[in-house]
């Protein structure tokens, strides 16, 4: 059975009220959702909390899943809306954080080899605008196609492509490639 076929079978069972089937769906897709949120959010604990909320909401709305997009895309769409809502309440602290990260980026030596490269990339990712960061997290980190990312983020395809290109260029710049 294909992974998509197994997903559909588990979705049907979850719709009939099987918590075991839904648990298997959580098992199968938790990594994609958590990784997306961790990269887009920049805070692992907050991201995992949002990921749990995402799955709880998904179970409540499993009857509305029509299968037009893949389950992973649908889940990341829910995660994205949760993140955008949460972001509004975090706006103040997050702005301070972003300002600090931008300052750090300016003060950072030109050669990232002097710093931990991973931390430098994480800081650069966190300094991207939220939509751009989410598009980068899905397309570069989650191996989503541009169309899938556009569906999940509810953005035009062209906007997603532009976000990914710009975000990638910024990250490569941090790695020392002009």
């Amino acid at each position, binding site marked *: 059975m294909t992974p998509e076929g197994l997903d559909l079978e588990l979705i049907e069972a979850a719709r009939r009220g099987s918590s075991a089937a*839904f648990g298997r769906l959580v098992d199968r897709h938790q*990594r994609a959702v958590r*990784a997306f949120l961790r990269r887009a959010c920049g805070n692992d604990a907050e991201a*995992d909390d949002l990921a749990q909320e995402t799955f709880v909401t998904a179970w409540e709305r499993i009857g509305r899943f029509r299968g037009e997009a893949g389950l992973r895309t649908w889940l990341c769409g829910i995660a994205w809306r949760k993140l955008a809502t949460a972001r509004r309440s975090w706006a103040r602290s997050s702005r301070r954080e972003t300002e600090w990260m931008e300052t750090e980026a300016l003060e950072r030596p030109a050669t990232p080899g002097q710093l931990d*490269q991973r931390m430098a990339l994480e800081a650069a990712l966190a300094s991207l605008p939220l939509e751009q960061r989410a598009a980068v997290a899905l397309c570069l980190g989650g191996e989503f196609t541009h169309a899938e990312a556009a569906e999940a983020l509810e953005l035009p395809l062209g906007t997603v492509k532009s976000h990914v290109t710009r975000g990638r260029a910024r990250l*490569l710049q941090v790695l020392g*490639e002009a």
Partner: protein
Amino acid sequence: MTDAEKKLDAFFADDGLPARDQAFTHAVMRRAAARRLRAELAWLGAVCLLGAVVLWALAPALEPILHLPARLIETAGPAIGVIVVVFTLLLITAPRDAGGPVSA
């Protein structure tokens, strides 16, 4: 592919997460169950509140009807109470069938 592109790919390939984290799944299921319980309690609370309001509104009309059972409880209440207590005690203390095989 340049060196920077390889490093970027490696950065995105390593998310530091296990493929399946049972603790995460349990946390999701626990949170879902708690939310369902809260929703059911809220529903029950609303139904009880509605019932109380309806009874309060109907109280003047129900009062004459309830006089008869009230008088019955007033006179036979203690006797009914004793019977219920004795019956409950008998039910609790009665030997139960263990459900195992019957020995000869």
